[in-house]
């Protein structure tokens, strides 16, 4: 049928099917800012204004919009201008990936058009229907309040860095603020850090404008005519052999162009984890197998003219299965007699496939038995951590096509374009040189996209049809057929002497890697590394079995084994402190690692080479200061205030505070590599080409700041183009908290080469020695105050005299992985009648070296804590007895919304890490580490109940409270 819609003031006649949603129709009409988040209206990514009110376009029938006024963000501002709300989102750092920013801006507009002076609570309510997985909502809330102030004609508050006084050695001062944390990033400066012009400042993101405007920038915003839609047929069985597949009816359906499955796709072994060459064993996957190993495993894929036809074709594929017994629990899976999940003869590289043991990992620094023998107390507890999903708001999506040179070009929402290219080549039977991977803007990844997950499917289908093919996972598929966090059962045993010093630590892990190994080895190695690095202890032992089971596949998830380890370690340290009657922070302080201490378990777990004398030594730590800052902000002294702990007017409420220490790594030493190249343009601007993959984290901006600092320009004079395997240098990709540290150093080196060439030409033009020249404000300055602009230098070198392209190319790999440290605090209220926990405040003080951009760094902490809070409190993948996930949708799978958030505070404690660019260490993952144990310890503080599993759902807490 045809309908006439008034979109952004223009009347448009559109053809559509009567059942189509307004989102589908608006996207077809070119409003790419209306985005897919799910089919259920829960994410709000497709929110638009209808008659000035916010509606979810995914659950509104397009036809019902006829006669109403529809506004999308495309209508908010013309090219070259910004609406004040958009400007406020940019200025406050409220945009990370920007996938849901258009929806938030519209939600803000709907509010402010009616209420020019909203309260914080009203802003939170207005944003509550737009889920965000990245910012923790703090900056978006500030953005709306700021926009309101600007629209009222008021002067908005400054966004620039606020310096806090150092507390170490000065005694704890009192903290007197509650409520919305200030917008300006809070930094505790360090006198060792040299002054800089661009680095360390609150620069706005280089990609913020296009994201604030909702310009086409994501994979799905490419408009390729003739694109076929791919759909995947998933296994309904947790474990089964495929006896036969009859695809004849599907092939015969008009509009179907290809059907692929194990019968017509070559069997090539691979491991899907996006990791450096050679991919760690086991190589236990093939594109399509004759066996399925979890509900949601791949069976077949089709490419068809429309989504409807593709779906209809799936329904016509006749598959005969021979169901096999399945096993879901990691401990049961490794017992004798459990069903064998990988029994295929060409399986490569599992430790003991007959017992479903993919890997057995052992690491020890000394004899722990002796350590336990000399201990005053030995305490042992078992903990369980569960499975959660990354839930990037943008699901996995890839579009493949043959380019004019008949090379396969795949645009993909991936964190690892270079790994994908390399891993894809053998599966498709193409040489690497005939594949190009382009990563546009992506709507979050969190590790789920550190995987070659769907690119082989679109590749096979484009090769089979010659046509462009698009595959986007639905929200349900994103839950079930993507990746997730590894569940683990962990037994931790600690020996302490009479003074509270550790004598031995032992960590025994059974980890669940689901149906495939992918990141199973390396995630669990990080678990060992993180579980046994925070504290000094003369004897440490790590033992881990990684089990195959029939659950959907865990993989990389922000934190990568560390959140599991640190939940266990920090819950356990709290338990030990309680058992031996010590203050939980004092007990940790007595044992925690600091500058000069060795990371003694590291060489055993593949980091640092002991043969080469390479015991890693900690070179910087701001932990002590971080703990003091956190104690002050959370008002730790209230633990001793009975009136606060048990409010008189709310008899069923108990309050408590909890602490957890966090320590992480920065990149994989000796392995993670990043490259960069920088060249000057006629006007003294620069193109920066990097392989590094910005997932919305702001890494493009941070890298631009590093380059800008070195060559003496502003951040917006650096034009960043990132991660396109044809055009940019190699980079391992966005994982392991490596981008700032590794790719940043590569950028710094390339920029230093450029700087040297600029200085040479400036010396020539100014007639002064090169050593005397300084670069700043887009010019080269001689000692006498004369200058020549970079534009003049560019024109001189490109056109006039001794011509050459001023450019530099460099790469970097680090032998070290300097640990960032964090102090995580949580304040909770427990309703002892229902078990409902309300987390009222989260504070994290982090030592990330020198934060290159304090706004994006604070955003990482705020958003990371929020994601970690979901892990602690309410997120969980739940299965029925057949292995089918019962909650693959937002809602039943609960993530925090703007109106449910605790107060958040991020404090950045500077240290000077000499091995990092301008002193930087990592920040991206450490905020995932401390929240779960801090909340758990706060519940213990409030109620005395120590709970050894997460998430801390009302029922779990209530049940724990019932145990006498």
């Amino acid at each position, binding site marked *: *049928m045809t309908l006439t819609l008034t979109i952004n003031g223009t009347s448009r006649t559109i053809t559509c*099917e*009567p*059942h189509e*949603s307004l989102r589908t129709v608006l996207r077809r009409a070119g409003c790419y800012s209306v985005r897919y988040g799910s*089919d*259920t*209206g*829960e994410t*709000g990514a497709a*929110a638009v204004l*209808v008659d000035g*009110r*916010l*509606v*979810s376009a*995914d*659950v*509104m*029938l397009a*036809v*019902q919009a006829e006669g109403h006024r529809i506004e999308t963000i495309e209508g908010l501002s013309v090219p070259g201008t910004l609406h004040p709300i958009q400007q406020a989102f940019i200025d406050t750092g409220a945009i990370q990936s920007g996938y849901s920013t258009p929806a938030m801006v519209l*939600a803000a507009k*709907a509010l402010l058009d009616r209420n020019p002076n909203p309260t914080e609570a009203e802003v939170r*309510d*207005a944003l*509550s*229907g*737009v889920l965000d997985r990245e910012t923790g909502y703090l900056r978006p809330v500030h953005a709306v309040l700021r926009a309101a102030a600007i629209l009222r004609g008021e002067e908005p508050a400054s966004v620039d860095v606020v310096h806090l006084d150092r507390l170490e050695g000065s005694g704890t001062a009192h903290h007197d603020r509650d409520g919305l944390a200030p917008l300006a990033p809070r930094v505790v400066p360090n006198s060792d850090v040299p002054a800089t012009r661009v680095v360390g400042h609150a620069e706005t993101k280089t990609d913020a404008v296009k994201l604030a405007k909702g310009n086409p920038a994501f994979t799905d915003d490419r408009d390729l005519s003739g694109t076929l839609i791919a759909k995947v047929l998933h296994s309904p069985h947790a474990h089964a052999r495929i006896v036969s597949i009859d695809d004849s009816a599907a092939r015969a359906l008009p509009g179907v162009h290809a059907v692929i499955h194990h019968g017509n796709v070559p069997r090539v072994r691979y491991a899907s984890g996006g990791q450096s060459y050679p991919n760690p064993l086991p190589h236990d996957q093939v594109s399509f197998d004759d066996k399925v190993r979890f509900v949601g495993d791949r069976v077949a894929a089709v490419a068809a003219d429309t989504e409807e036809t593709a*779906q209809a074709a799936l329904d016509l594929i006749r598959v005969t299965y021979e169901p096999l017994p399945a096993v879901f629990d990691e401990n049961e899976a490794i017992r004798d007699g459990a069903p064998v999940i990988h029994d295929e003869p060409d399986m490569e590289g599992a430790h003991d496939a007959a017992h479903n043991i993919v890997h057995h990992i052992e690491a020890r620094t000394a004899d722990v038995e002796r350590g336990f023998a000399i201990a005053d107390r030995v305490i042992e507890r078992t903990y369980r951590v569960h499975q959660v999903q990354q839930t990037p708001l943008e699901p996995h999506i890839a579009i493949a096509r043959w380019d004019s040179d008949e090379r396969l070009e795949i645009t993909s929402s991936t964190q690892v374009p270079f790994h994908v290219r390399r891993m894809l080549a053998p599966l498709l039977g193409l040489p690497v040189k005939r594949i190009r991977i382009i990563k546009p803007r992506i709507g979050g990844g969190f590790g789920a996209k550190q995987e070659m997950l769907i690119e082989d499917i679109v590749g096979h289908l484009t090769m089979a049809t010659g046509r462009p093919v698009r595959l986007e996972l639905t929200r349900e598929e994103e839950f079930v057929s993507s990746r997730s966090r590894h569940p683990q059962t962990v037994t931790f045993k600690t020996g302490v002497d009479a003074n509270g010093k550790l004598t031995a630590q032992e960590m025994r892990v059974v980890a669940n890697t689901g149906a495939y190994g992918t990141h199973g080895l390396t995630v669990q190695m990080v678990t060992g590394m993180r579980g046994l690095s925070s504290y000094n202890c003369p004897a440490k032992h790590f033992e881990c079995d990684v089990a195959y089971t029939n659950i959907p596949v865990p993989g990389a998830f922000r934190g990568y084994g560390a959140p599991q380890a640190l939940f266990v370690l920090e819950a356990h340290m709290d338990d030990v402190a309680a058992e031996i009657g010590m203050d939980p922070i004092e007990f940790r302080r007595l044992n925690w690692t600091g500058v000069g201490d060795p990371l003694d378990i590291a060489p055993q777990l593949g980091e640092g080479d002991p043969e080469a004398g390479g015991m890693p030594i900690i070179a910087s730590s701001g932990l002590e200061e971080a703990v003091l800052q956190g104690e002050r902000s959370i008002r730790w002294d209230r633990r001793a205030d009975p009136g606060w702990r048990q409010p008189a007017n709310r008899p069923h409420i108990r309050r408590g505070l909890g602490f957890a220490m966090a320590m992480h790594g920065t990149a994989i030493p000796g392995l993670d590599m990043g490259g960069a190249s920088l060249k000057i343009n006629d006007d003294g601007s620069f193109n920066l080409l990097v392989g590094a993959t910005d997932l919305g984290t702001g890494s493009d901006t941070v890298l631009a700041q590093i380059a800008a600092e070195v060559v003496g320009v502003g951040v917006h004079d650096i034009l960043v183009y990132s991660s396109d395997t044809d055009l940019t240098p190699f980079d391992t990709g966005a994982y392991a908290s490596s981008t700032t540290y590794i790719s940043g150093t590569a950028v710094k080196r390339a920029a230093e080469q450029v700087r040297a060439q600029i200085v040479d030409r400036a010396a020539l033009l100014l007639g002064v020695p090169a050593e005397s020249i300084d670069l700043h404000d887009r010019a080269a300055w001689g000692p006498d105050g004369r200058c020549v602009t970079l534009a003049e230098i560019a024109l001189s070198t490109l056109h006039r005299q001794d011509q050459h392209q001023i450019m530099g190319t460099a790469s970097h790999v680090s032998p070290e992985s300097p640990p960032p440290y964090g102090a995580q605090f949580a304040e909770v209220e427990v309703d002892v*009648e*229902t078990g*409902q926990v*309300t987390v009222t405040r989260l504070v994290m003080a982090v030592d990330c070296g020198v934060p290159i951009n304090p706004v994006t760094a604070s955003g990482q902490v705020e958003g990371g804590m929020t994601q970690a809070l979901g892990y602690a*409190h*309410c997120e969980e993948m*739940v299965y029925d007895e057949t292995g089918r996930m*019962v*909650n693959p949708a*937002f*809602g*039943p799978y*609960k993530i*925090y*919304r703007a*109106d*449910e958030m605790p107060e958040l505070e991020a404090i950045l404690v500077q240290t000077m890490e000499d091995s990092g660019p301008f002193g930087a260490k990592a920040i991206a993952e450490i905020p995932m580490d401390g929240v779960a144990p801090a909340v758990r310890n706060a519940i213990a503080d409030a109620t005395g109940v120590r709970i050894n599993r997460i998430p801390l*759902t*009302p*029922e779990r807490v*209530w*049940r724990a409270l019932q145990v006498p």
Partner: protein
Amino acid sequence: MQFFRPSSLREALEIRAAHPEAVPIAGGTDLMVEVNFGRRRPEAFLDISRLPELREIRREGPNVRLGSGVPYARVIRELPDQVALAQASRTVGSPQIRTRGTVGGNLGTGSPAGDALPVLAAYDARVVLRSSTATRTLAWRDFLVGPKRTALAPDELIVATEWERAVGPGSFSKVGTRNAMVIAIAGLCLQLDEAARGVRVALGSVGPTILRAPEAETFAAGILDEVGAWSDRGARVPEEAIARFGELVSAAARPIDDVRGTGAYRRHACAVLATRALTWALDDRRAAAMEAAS
């Protein structure tokens, strides 16, 4: 596939009679989820979102008549004195769902987790149904006949719900992982009726359909009578009696184990919600009594 867009109720009912296969769509917030998932692909839609007759709120004396097409956002703005209903409306979904979603749609879906439904049950509301030839008015319990099953005939539309406003405190509350949760572990509405000296309590999400708790209601009304609280709003009700009320409410629940919680826990949650709701109601009355006295 056809799409009907009548502009009056009469026209709509005629189409309904001629095309019973056409599925009525109001805000679409329930229906579109089904359609997007391909679980439902109706042969035809009947768009009832533009019928002025369904978008009316009428009040005559104590009687309230709420058009089936009124979205939650308007309930919140226009019926603030129907405290429990406004509270329930505020917990539905998110702002953009409240812009479109209607109470009529909540009834039409008839899910035991529909947030407006326990309130309508506690209000003793009636559902007004009309076809091109007749009008029927059913008590809520005769309309909500089972899990996602209603008494709607294929040629009928829900035009309104109506109730007599009870004078007395009322509240809606739910327990979830967080304060708001798309589907609650348990939802409860309590309404006191001072004139009839009655206590009404209804439960959502803890049975195949919305449940009232008659034993608990009788017990509570009796206790208030015993302590003289109906005539003296300041009179105290013993804690044990309130706890007993909670137990009786909990006994009326028929929850199952599911992803949100075990049946046992949800039963317990009902008891807590009930004791709290009654405590708030009694506190409200006491506060009002004190104010009146001063």
